[in-house]
């Protein structure tokens, strides 16, 4: 979608100005643009849902909302082949290791959308003894889509924001999101895997 379509995301505007300030080589810049064009237009979701939000995600694929228009309908069941993970539903203590492992299994570049109140903060179950209070402590999150569950339109908007975010990334550069991601992963290491 054209960049001018909406400029309502301060965070991305900040990234863009940061990128412009740092300047770049013409050749590398063009390649970057091509790669980002590919990446931002081809976001394949992982089939992952734990509860209510997952059903809205199914509706998102259905005829009325049809995410296939944007090329997001190639939902992969194997995390190795997916690009982003729509965390649709509550993540509970027992699910956390599995969820983190799924994230680690995603191939780079990988993105996470926290979809719905439960994924963002624990939502209505925040006071429970067995619910993770938001997934941002477990994996780095790119986009938050609030709602309980968010309407499919909100989900479309969320993925479009992700797509814009991907567009201002740099493959050869080295600014922005990837740095954040590395920092996050260094701060939240997975202790010895026991298989």
């Amino acid at each position, binding site marked *: *979608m054209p960049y001018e379509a909406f400029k309502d995301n301060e965070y991305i505007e900040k990234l863009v100005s940061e990128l412009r300030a740092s300047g770049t080589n013409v050749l590398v810049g063009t390649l970057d643009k*091509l*790669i980002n*064009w*590919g*990446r931002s*237009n*081809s976001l394949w979701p992982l089939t992952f849902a734990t509860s209510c939000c997952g059903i809205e995600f199914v509706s998102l694929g*259905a*005829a009325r909302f*049809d995410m*296939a*228009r*944007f*090329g997001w*309908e*190639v939902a*992969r*069941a*194997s995390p*190795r*082949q997916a*690009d982003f993970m729509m965390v649709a539903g509550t993540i509970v203590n027992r699910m956390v290791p599995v969820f983190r492992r799924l994230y680690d*299994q995603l*191939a*780079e*570049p990988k993105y996470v959308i926290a979809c719905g109140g439960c994924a963002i903060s624990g939502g209505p179950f925040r006071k429970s003894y067995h619910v993770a209070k938001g997934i941002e402590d477990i994996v780095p999150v790119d986009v938050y889509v609030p709602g309980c569950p968010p309407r499919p339109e909100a989900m479309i908007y969320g993925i479009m924001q992700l797509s814009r975010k991907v567009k201002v990334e740099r*493959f050869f550069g080295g600014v922005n999101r990837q740095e954040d991601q590395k920092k996050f992963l260094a701060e939240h290491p997975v202790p010895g895997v026991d298989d």
Partner: protein
Amino acid sequence: MFKFSIITDWINNLLHEWMPGWLATTIECVAIGVGLLLAYALLALFYIYYERKVCAAFQCRLGPNRVGPFGLLQSFADMFKILIKELISLNHIDKFLFALAPYLVIIASMLAFAVLPWGNGLQIINFNIGIFFLIAVSSIGVLGILLAGWSSNNKFTLIGALRSGAQMVSYELSIGLSVLTMVAFAGTMSVPGIVEAQSNLWFIFSGHIPAIIAFIIYLIAGTAETNRGPFDLPEAESELTAGYHTEYSGIHFGFFYLAEYLNLFIVSGVAALLFFGGWMPLHIPGFDTFNHIMDYIPSVVWFIGKAIALSFIIIWFKWTFPRLRIDQLLSLEWKYLLPINLFNLVLMTLMIVYGLHF
């Protein structure tokens, strides 16, 4: 009808005039290789787009329409992404075989391209046993799938690979027998020979009943050979997550993904060759004007158009039928298709002997 061999011969002669024979041959090989790769990539990308659009139409949706006009650039975007996606290196796997498997799959489908009758005189190799070669190389693909499933050291992929092994070996029989039926009718195994034999009337019409039976069996077995629904057990998404290629990421997965669509093209291309005259335009004996008009459509368009139309049927299968179970799949082959096929071969022989064809 325009013969492409005029151009190719001219280039060949030109090269041989200007340089030693070995160099000319090398240049020709490289040029053909590059051309083949290009055609391969473009066809695969087109097929991905095509399937997504057709599937969307079946499901009352629009399908890709945002990236480029009518979403035409969608599969290009997918390709760029998948090219630079991380290749995850795994522990506890057979690294060599794991890396080899996707190439085996892609090579198998690429070799099959060599003998397809792309157009009048446009064929890479002209064997006298072309169709036999085609069947032989297309079965290398199963080796890649088996290796992929086995080397990944994952139970899902292993089950997927075993399923695919059982499936491919069984359905190879049906493909072989239905091809044999048509070869018997054509009287030659050479691909141009088969096409030439249909210059008056396509085999599906001239061979009538046995040809139609062979065509139906070929289509079913061909769908099974390409691992597409309703025979997509090796990668049954709801059972084995992604089947034999569960552990593959990046371009390695991309190869499997492309090969699936290319195999679809090859299966429909061979069907076009055997039953619908390859690149041969639609000729009806007696209607000379009509035949003449048909000749104006280039032979390449005929071939690719037929292949795409036949692929539509296979895609239609996939988006309509539920998946079979492994035992039902095998009993369909061994209990129904194989006996019918053998009977059909006898029928065809009798028809040829008594000259009951058109």
